[in-house]
């Protein structure tokens, strides 16, 4: 039989949607002519083994197929440790999996280490609003499970030199049975970069005084192709949607530049942005906690300073 090969496009560490578009067309073509559709993923490695499970029910995260299939894979391979990202799906299937496997799970770890003599995973996470760091272990149960917020650790930089074994996991129908059905999916419009992936974030807080004063933040962020962030208080006041919220009850971010404008620096907020490469704090109160966590601090009215900055950058563009 002849083969149709789709070469997967990678964007960063993800398989780009264009790949699935090509697969759609490939399937269509294979009706006219019996073609075996293959997809090639050129993967830079980092794993000693790649376990592949394929089923149509995995197209988007669905609780029962994911947890049951993962539980079955875990039973077969008996790992000591399971790590998954603390995304909306990871934070849902990992608890489900822990429940089925009767083992411990630690959410949102910011540090991971191994206790050499016991093999216990030392899982460190912020607790009580980020005021303390708790280290947690799962001494008598295996596997040990942890979720980690995206942008917490640095990505694998160089290709890891090892042969990767490819294992096909056979997904049996009982694993994917569910009555839950996805009816529609509305993707976020292009161009709206999520705050987690932003390189530059300009975040506003209550120090802006009123919602109209968000304007310079939006203007600046547009000029530099940045993303608008927010403290919990202005999200609660509905100045901006929850998707912009930075902090423990919002997103953890790791941008190159983080500008905190009129944000006092509650511990919950700090916990969400402290790993930014460069932090600028603008606040009227010289004693605001945010200055303890910033690389440069400007004492003054955030609205005035942002307007000045925008004006100054505009003249730069015109030049």
């Amino acid at each position, binding site marked *: 039989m002849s083969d149709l090969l789709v070469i997967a496009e990678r964007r960063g560490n993800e398989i780009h949607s264009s790949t699935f578009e090509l697969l759609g067309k490939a399937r269509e073509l294979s009706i006219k002519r019996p073609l075996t559709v293959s997809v090639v993923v050129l993967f830079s490695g980092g794993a000693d083994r790649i376990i592949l499970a394929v089923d149509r029910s995995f197209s988007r995260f669905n*609780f*029962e197929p994911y947890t049951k299939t993962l539980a079955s894979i875990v039973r077969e391979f008996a790992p000591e440790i399971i790590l998954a990202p603390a995304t909306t799906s990871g934070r*849902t299937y990992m608890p489900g999996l822990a429940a089925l496997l009767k083992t411990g799970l630690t959410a949102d770890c910011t540090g991971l280490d191994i206790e050499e003599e016991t093999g216990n995973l030392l899982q460190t996470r912020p607790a009580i609003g980020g005021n303390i760091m708790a280290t947690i*272990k799962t001494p008598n149960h295996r596997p040990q499970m942890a979720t980690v917020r995206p942008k917490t650790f640095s990505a694998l930089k160089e290709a890891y030199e090892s042969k990767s074994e490819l294992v096909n996991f056979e997904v049996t129908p009982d694993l994917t049975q569910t009555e839950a059905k*996805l009816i529609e999916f509305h993707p976020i419009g292009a161009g709206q970069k999520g705050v987690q992936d932003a390189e530059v974030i300009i975040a506003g807080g209550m120090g802006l005084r009123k919602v109209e004063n968000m304007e310079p933040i939006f203007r600046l962020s547009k000029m530099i192709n940045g993303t608008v962030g927010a403290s919990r208080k202005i999200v609660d006041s509905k100045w901006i949607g929850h998707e912009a919220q930075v902090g423990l009850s919002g997103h953890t971010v790791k941008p190159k530049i983080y500008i905190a404008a009129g944000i006092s620096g509650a511990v919950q907020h700090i916990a969400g942005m402290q790993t930014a490469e460069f932090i600028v704090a603008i606040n009227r109160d010289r004693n605001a906690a945010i200055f303890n966590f910033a690389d440069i601090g400007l004492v003054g009215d955030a609205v005035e300073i942002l307007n000045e900055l925008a004006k100054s950058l505009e003249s730069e563009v015109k030049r």
Partner: protein
Amino acid sequence: MKILVLLKQVPDTDEVKLNPETGTMIREGVGTVINPLDLHALETALRIKETGDHSVTVVSMGPPAAEEAVREAIAMGADRAVLLTDRKFAGADTWATSMALARFAEKEGPFDLILAGEKATDGETGQVGPETGAMLGIPVATYVSRIAELDESGITIEREVEDGKEIWKLPLPSLVSVTKDVNEPRLPTLNGKKLARNASVERIGNDFLELDPSEIGLKGSPTRVVRIGTPKLSRKVEMYEGSSIRDGIDEIKKRLAPYLEVNHE
């Protein structure tokens, strides 16, 4: 329809103070309230109740002192409030907590719909909802921002995820955990408060749940907290104020200039 709402009582966060020497929370004298995010789950249940012949049960696990927080749910309009309380439950992590909640749901059910908040404001794990659902073997939807439809055939919900919005139809029973976008919780009414004062919160221990001692409390908890530390976060800040503000603005400008759209051409 029988609806169950999972509630947690949490310290009133506005009152939380830290011991400056140990960095731990001072719990003495701090009041407890229903986890604010769970109020959205309760509100969801109460709005369903208003549409027909439905009953709302709330259940929480905690020390006897948690009774006041659970009672508040009656003041808001819940029909029945249950507190799972037993010395043997003490020290439970999310697994052991979910085990007790799931067993309660089995024994007193079947419930058609189980609702939970996104996470608790103290532990912030968000694990108990999905763990309970998995133990009961029912579908789970998390991060639900809207309930679109509910009838005997199932529940239609919207969930907000990183790359967009999904609309799902789940069969009943299912467990749904909601975000704060789903509704604005009501305040207890005066009448409700009166009612709550006289209402009894049922206390249920392990004599009723009959869970194996290895599955409850600290003994049934796979995880252990082994160390508490204070986060180290500080940076060395360069301050600009008064007449040097201009220099500060220039410094930011220098950092942002490479990102200006025009410079990418």
